[in-house]
């Protein structure tokens, strides 16, 4: 339904010149980036670096979903916001920062909670989904929605000095549920509000998510499909973990799935879909 961009104008040839000369990208790869749409869910510590590096690289359309407003306590890690924007919508702030860097990218902010009601319609409009969220319920929701819409899901997470990165539901690789069929007990889940996080750790993981998106958009091999990156910022170590293949008995991506439409994920996880409140089970 979108008209494909089939050539680069002179301004864009200049703008992207340093990546156009990479043989792995070239004009063909740049056009693929221009014709790719990416939905970033979460305009926080992971979403900020992801969004700005995708805008810089010339992804055609970037959607940004977040229900939240900017607070001072976000600014130690959410680097696209500014002091003067505190109280304003995060999604609009990220879109504005991306447009300031590259006005040829179409940036669409969605100031809304991603829910079982709107997720499929939103995700269906995009080619690649970035999980830059901050809570378990939304991660299951996003996983199931990405599987049902058949979109690759580039998943990042960070807490304290640690980060994790993988790509779900891509090229017949596993999904989040293949690895974790059951949600963790709510009392074992720590969020950034309670556990803390050093801002640059989601910065590194979010940047790596942008790289994965670019590789998927261009069709480069060696993505983090069926692989997990473990980053330990205190040790300065990166580990590459081989993961299981897609599980035939997976409830959502398996051969005979039981989940064919989105469910109630707060109920499923026993926890609210934000990183603020206490767990439902405790309330």
């Amino acid at each position: 339904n979108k008209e494909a961009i089939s050539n680069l104008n002179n301004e864009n040839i200049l703008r992207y010149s340093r990546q156009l000369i990479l043989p792995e990208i070239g004009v063909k790869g740049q056009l693929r980036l221009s014709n790719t749409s990416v939905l970033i869910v979460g305009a926080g510590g992971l979403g900020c670096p992801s969004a700005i590096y995708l805008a810089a690289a010339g992804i055609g359309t970037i959607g940004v979903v977040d229900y939240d407003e900017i607070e001072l306590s976000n600014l130690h890690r959410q680097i696209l916001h500014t002091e003067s924007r505190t109280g304003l919508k995060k999604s609009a702030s990220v879109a504005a920062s991306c447009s300031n860097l590259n006005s040829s990218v179409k940036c669409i902010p969605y100031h809304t909670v991603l829910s079982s009601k709107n997720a499929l319609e939103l995700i269906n409009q995009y080619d690649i989904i970035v999980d830059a969220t901050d809570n378990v319920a939304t991660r299951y929701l996003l996983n199931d929605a990405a599987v049902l819409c058949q979109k690759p899901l580039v998943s990042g997470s960070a807490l304290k000095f640690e980060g994790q990165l993988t790509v779900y539901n891509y090229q017949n690789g596993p999904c989040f549920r293949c690895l974790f069929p059951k949600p963790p007990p709510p009392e074992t889940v720590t969020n950034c509000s309670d556990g803390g996080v050093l801002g640059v750790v989601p910065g590194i993981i979010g940047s790596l998510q942008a790289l994965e998106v670019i590789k998927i958009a261009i069709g480069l091999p060696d993505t983090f499909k069926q692989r997990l990156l473990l980053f330990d910022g205190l040790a300065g170590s990166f580990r590459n973990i081989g993961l299981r293949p897609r599980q035939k008995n997976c409830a959502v991506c398996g051969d005979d799935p039981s989940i064919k439409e989105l469910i109630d994920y707060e109920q499923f996880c026993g926890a609210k879909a934000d990183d603020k409140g206490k767990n439902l089970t405790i309330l």
Partner: protein
Amino acid sequence: MLITLEFSGGAEMLFDNKKSHEVNLPDTEKWTIGSLLLWIRDNLLRDKPELFLQDDTIRPGILVLINDADWELYGQSEYVVEAKDKISFISTLHGG
């Protein structure tokens, strides 16, 4: 039999915040990951075993690795532990 146990992603908080443990398993039996889990509960866990094990297996949300690969690739709790193995328990992160 000497092996290395690793905990990360928050799982280390159940083990004195120590991420790496060299342990010496008694040579009295053949060790599987299943029996290792119970040994960890009885010998290393300080408190709150339910945050590590549920129904005698690993609780949801912790990924078990055998020498840096998903235990699912090695038969999960049936895998027979060998000397010098590195068994890791990675709690998944959800922050962003």
